[in-house]
Structure formats: C-alpha cells, structure tokens
C-alpha cells in the first residue's frame, strides 16, 4: 500500500466531475477512453489535459462501445483505466461491460446520470439508471456499483472505486448525477485523511504454473498484465481456470458461483454506507446520491421540531447493503425512501425487510427532491 498524500494539503473549488478526475488520478488511473456526452464531458476534457502530463494516455474513441473496449484492453495491459459517460452512452457500454465482468477486468465506469429513456433530459438530473447499473449487461454477473453525493465524495469514492476494482478484479460502476457533477464546492486535496491506494495482486508463480482464473480462498485470482511474460488467453466465452473456452456445467456453475462469492467474501468492506443521527432515530430516510444532501438537511429540520429522525446513505448500491438497511428498518417505526426515479432501490429495501413501514417518495420530472419536500414528508410519517 502506498499513500495518496504527497505534499501539503490545499483547498480547491472543484466541480463534482473535476473531483472524480482528481480521485482517479490519485488512485493511479493512467488511461482514459471516452466519448463526449452531457453532463459527463468535463471528465474527458480534464483527463485530456492532465493525463499526458503524468505519462498517461487519453483517447477520444468513435463511440462508447469502443471506449469500453479500449479501457478493457488497457487494463488487461496493466493500466488503471476509466471511462465516463451518461445514459445513452452507458447503454452502449453494456456489451463490453459484460466482457469485463466475464474476464474479471478491473476498471471504473462513471455514469453521470441524466433523465431518460433515450436522449431524454440531457441537462437534468436523475437516478433512474440504478437498476441498469446492476443488470444492464445480459446474463447473471456480479458487479459493484457506488453512488456519490457531493464533491468530497466524488474524490474519495472514486479512489474507493479503483481500489475495489483492483482488489476484487471486477468492473466498478460509479454513479454520479447532473447535480453532483456540476456543483462546485471547496475541498482539501489531498484530504486530511488520505485514502490508501490498492493495486491488483500479480501472480507469484512462474508463468508455466499460472492459471489466470484459478479459484483460491478469496475467489480472486492474481492478474498478470499482458506483456509481462504470462501469456494466456482471455475470452468472453465461458472458460476454465486456464482461460480456454469450456461450456461444461461444472465449469460454468463454478465460475458464476465464484464471481458472486468473491464479492460476498468482501461484503463488510464493499458495502459502504454513511450514517447520520441514526442512533436514537424513530423515523429514517434511506437514500443515495444527490438526494443525500436534502436528506441531511431535512433530518436536521425535523430534529429542530423534536422529531427523532435519522438518515442512512447508501454509498454502495450493489451488492445491496442488506445488513445496514435491515438494522434501520428494524429500529425505526417508519422508513422513507426518496429517489429521483419511479421507485427502483425501494424494491430492494422492501425485499430486505417486509415488516417495515416503508414510504416511497419519487420525483421523475427532471426536478430535484429538495429538503423542504423531504421535511414535509418526514413530519407526516
């Protein structure tokens, strides 16, 4: 482990999208391929300016399918890699995202969410891609999805995204949205508590013994960079421990079980949440992304009125943080799940605890769920 802190911390006024770039570079990202789309384009623009000064590489590809293919290739060759997009582009990335999942390639995909479907609302925020982030590519697969709520989050969670990708050999999707992406806030860089950086584990055996997809106690096989002497085959077909196509039921079942197991093994570390005034809470808000900001404010307003309100922020959306959600559902007499979509994550909350009194609050007209809206709802619970 090395530390991301190098010199004296300074204060910067950054946009959420800029903070994602800073986080990615601090995490060691040295390759970016992308295709412009509002509201994510600043990420590509800043990367094109900064990466060449760090010995890294930026390329604007012909579309998002190509961008995704390029970052898989670069990561296989050893470069920590990122792409950034929004709704329509995220849809195009699904095919090669599935390839990254099948071949267990660490990388980070940022989706700065905007209203959909289709071209939808290019400049309005939304949280309607949370299910697509989980299930957008076809077939059973394991995936990590994180959501950021502020500029400070955008920096730190981006580093976490790279760390988890590297540690678990998996693609990680980082969801931001038009509001967080374009809001400017002051943050200290490097932060007061620097986030440690994790790099993928390389094979420790000689090349002729190396099995790129061999199971072990963690379920995460060591990963050799292309060109490092460990010649092997990478395929999107179902494959055996050597990486060669194999469709036998034993190999297929074993592969998928290992994919799920490796993330289950790391659940404590992967399933990140943040708690706010939950210790004595009787009513709680559970949400994620930009709505978190309103939730904190609404909880404060409710407390001023003598209501014991609290808030659970889901930093990790997938694998869904069941334990933390269940604990809140058990403790509180009512739980409010506000989302800027027609009700997506609320289904998961309901599945975790069927006895909880759940209220959903949805806004899907391109507008923001303000503190006042949440406060009114809290007071009525």
């Amino acid at each position, binding site marked *: 482990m090395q530390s991301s802190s190098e010199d004296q911390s300074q204060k910067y006024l950054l946009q959420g999208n800029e903070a994602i770039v800073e986080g990615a570079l601090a995490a060691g990202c040295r390759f970016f391929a992308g295709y412009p789309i509002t509201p994510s384009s600043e990420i590509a623009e800043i990367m094109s300016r900064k990466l060449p000064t760090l010995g890294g590489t930026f390329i604007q590809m012909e579309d998002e399918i190509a961008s995704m293919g390029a970052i898989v*290739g670069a990561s296989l060759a050893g470069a920590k890699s990122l792409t950034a997009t929004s709704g329509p582009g995220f849809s195009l990335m699904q095919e090669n995202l599935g390839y990254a999942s099948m071949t267990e390639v660490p990388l980070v995909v940022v989706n700065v969410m905007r209203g959909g479907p289709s071209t939808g609302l290019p400049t309005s925020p939304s949280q309607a891609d949370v299910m697509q982030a989980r299930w957008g590519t076809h077939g059973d697969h394991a995936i990590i999805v994180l959501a950021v709520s502020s500029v400070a989050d955008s920096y730190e969670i981006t580093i976490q995204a790279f760390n988890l990708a590297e540690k678990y050999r998996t693609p990680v999707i980082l969801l931001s949205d038009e509001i967080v992406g374009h809001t400017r806030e002051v943050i200290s860089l490097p932060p007061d508590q620097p986030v440690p950086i994790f790099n993928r584990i390389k094979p420790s055996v000689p090349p002729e013994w190396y099995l790129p997809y061999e199971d072990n106690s963690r379920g995460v096989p060591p990963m050799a960079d292309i060109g490092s002497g460990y010649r092997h085959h990478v395929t999107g077909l179902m494959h055996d421990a050597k990486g060669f196509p194999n469709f036998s039921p034993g190999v297929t079942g074993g592969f998928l079980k290992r994919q799920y197991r490796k993330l289950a093994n790391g659940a404590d570390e992967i399933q990140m949440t943040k708690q706010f005034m939950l210790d004595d809470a009787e009513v709680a808000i559970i949400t994620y992304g930009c709505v978190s900001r309103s939730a904190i404010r609404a909880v404060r307003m409710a407390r001023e009125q003598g209501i014991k309100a609290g808030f659970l922020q889901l930093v990790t959306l997938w694998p869904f943080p069941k334990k933390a959600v269940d604990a809140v559902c058990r403790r509180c007499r009512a739980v409010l799940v506000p989302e800027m979509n027609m009700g997506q994550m609320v289904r998961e909350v309901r599945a975790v605890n069927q006895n909880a009194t759940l209220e959903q609050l949805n806004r899907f007209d391109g507008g923001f769920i303000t503190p006042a809206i949440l406060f009114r709802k809290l007071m009525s619970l």
Partner: protein
Amino acid sequence: MVEHAAKVRHDFLRHDMNFPHVWCPGCGLGIVLGSLIRATSSLNIPQDDLVLASGIGCTGRMSAYVDFNTLHTTHGRALTFATGIKLAKPNLTVMTVMGDGDATAIGGNHFIHAARRNLNITAIIVNNMIYGMTGGQYSPTTPYGSKATTAPYGHVEQAFSIAELAVAAGASYVARGTVHHVPQLDGLIKGGIQKKGFSVIEIMSNCHTYYGRQNGLSDPVEYQKYFKKNAVSVKKAAEMSAAEMEGKFSIGVLADIEQPAYVEEYQHIRDNACKEMAEKGEKKGGDCAQERRDEM
C-alpha cells in the same frame, strides 16, 4: 534435427488447446493460421511481446490457437481492445484477426476509425464473403446476386471492397492476398507487422460450407481454383478496364505510405503538455519528470 516448419508449429501453436481445431475440414482459416505463425516467427519478436486480439466468428476462434498473449473479444470490437492494449504498452506488437462481418458490418465504424487514427496495429481480415459461424447469412462483402440463408432469392446489395476501403480511410499499409497464394500471403502479413502505423491485410478465404454450398463452390479444391483464376496482381489490375476486372480482384500491396503513427504523435502531446506546464510554472498534476516516453 527438428525441421523448421515443425519447430514453428511447436513454438507458436499452443500445446494445451484441443486440436483438431473447430473449423470445417478444408476451411481456409487453417491456411491463414499457418501464414500468420510463419510470418510472425520470421520476425524474431519474443512471443511474450506478441498480442493477437480476435472478434467473434469462425475467424475469431483463431486467437485461442497461437501461443501469444491472446484475446477473443466481442463481435466487431477487436480493434477497440487492441487500441487500449497498444496505448497502454506501445512496445508490444499488436495484431487483430477478424471476419468480414466482424470487421466491416458490426465493427465497420471501429475499422475506419482505427485506419484514420493510424495507430500501430496490424489488422488481418479474413474475407469469406459470408457469415460462417452463424450459418451463411449475407455479409457486407457478399457479392451482388449471390445466395445466402438470408438472401434466398439472391442478394441485392453491393459489396464492400475491404482493402480499398482501408486505403480510403487512411491506413499506412494495405494488402490483399488469398489462401491460394500462400508464400505471397506470408510476405504480406510480415510486411504489415513490420509497418509502423495501421496495416490491413485482407485475405480472400473459402467458406465452402456456407458460401460455397449456396453458390456452386462446395468443394474446397474448386474454391482454390476460383482464387487462382480470379486473382490479378495489383500491377496488372491497374492496367485492366472495369469490364475486364468484373468478378476479379487484385492481390498484392495496395498502399504502403510513410505518415506519422499514433504512438509517436501521442508522445508529442505528452511533450507539449509538459512544456506548457513548465512554462506556466504549474506543479499540480504531476512533476512531468518524463514519467514515460514512447518511442516507436
């Protein structure tokens, strides 16, 4: 003493892949594989530095058989993965192998842009004028009037000429060969790998199983005669009229030009970015201590 051809097969084909291969007996893909390993082995590049990325199709299966760093990617996208690999590690010799549908239908956009960008990659395109793996549907190179399982009444679209398309899109080296003219093919592939910049080698090959059966060429030997009869050298083709070229195609090197390749160009970007930063006295964003130089 081990004869040379056996040594090439021993060293360049994987021992742990199941042979015989997945291809139909008599398929031209075996000849392409032979040419590929002879061409690469003659260049004395360490196998650890060779990368072959393929797409999806009968052609796409080729990557699994060679003992390089290999990728079997998604349909049409081999060049995008190859782009990432080459940019991350420019010292590697990166090649792709794709079918005609793979490279010019679903992957057509990636193909023309890879040529335009002139990144140092060698793209081998096996043109059997049909979709082999999925059972004989028409592809962008299926000739007008041919039959296909999705053109039971005859095909009414005009075919792409892949090599000419690559020339127009800006590739540095473009050649066409056939699975009948094998010594020439070895040389064309070798020429492509040696070329700095984007190279395309279009290889006319037989899918007697699907194109052939539907179009009176079901025998691979007849197919060889077809290639022999209809291939005309690039030089001779230049002197022939369009009417004389009807049903024929040129073979040889169509383009071989010197132009800046992407890896060098990107190094200029790094140099300029660092210079600009030094002039402005900026520190943040790295110290620009020439963290990496790509010289190709």
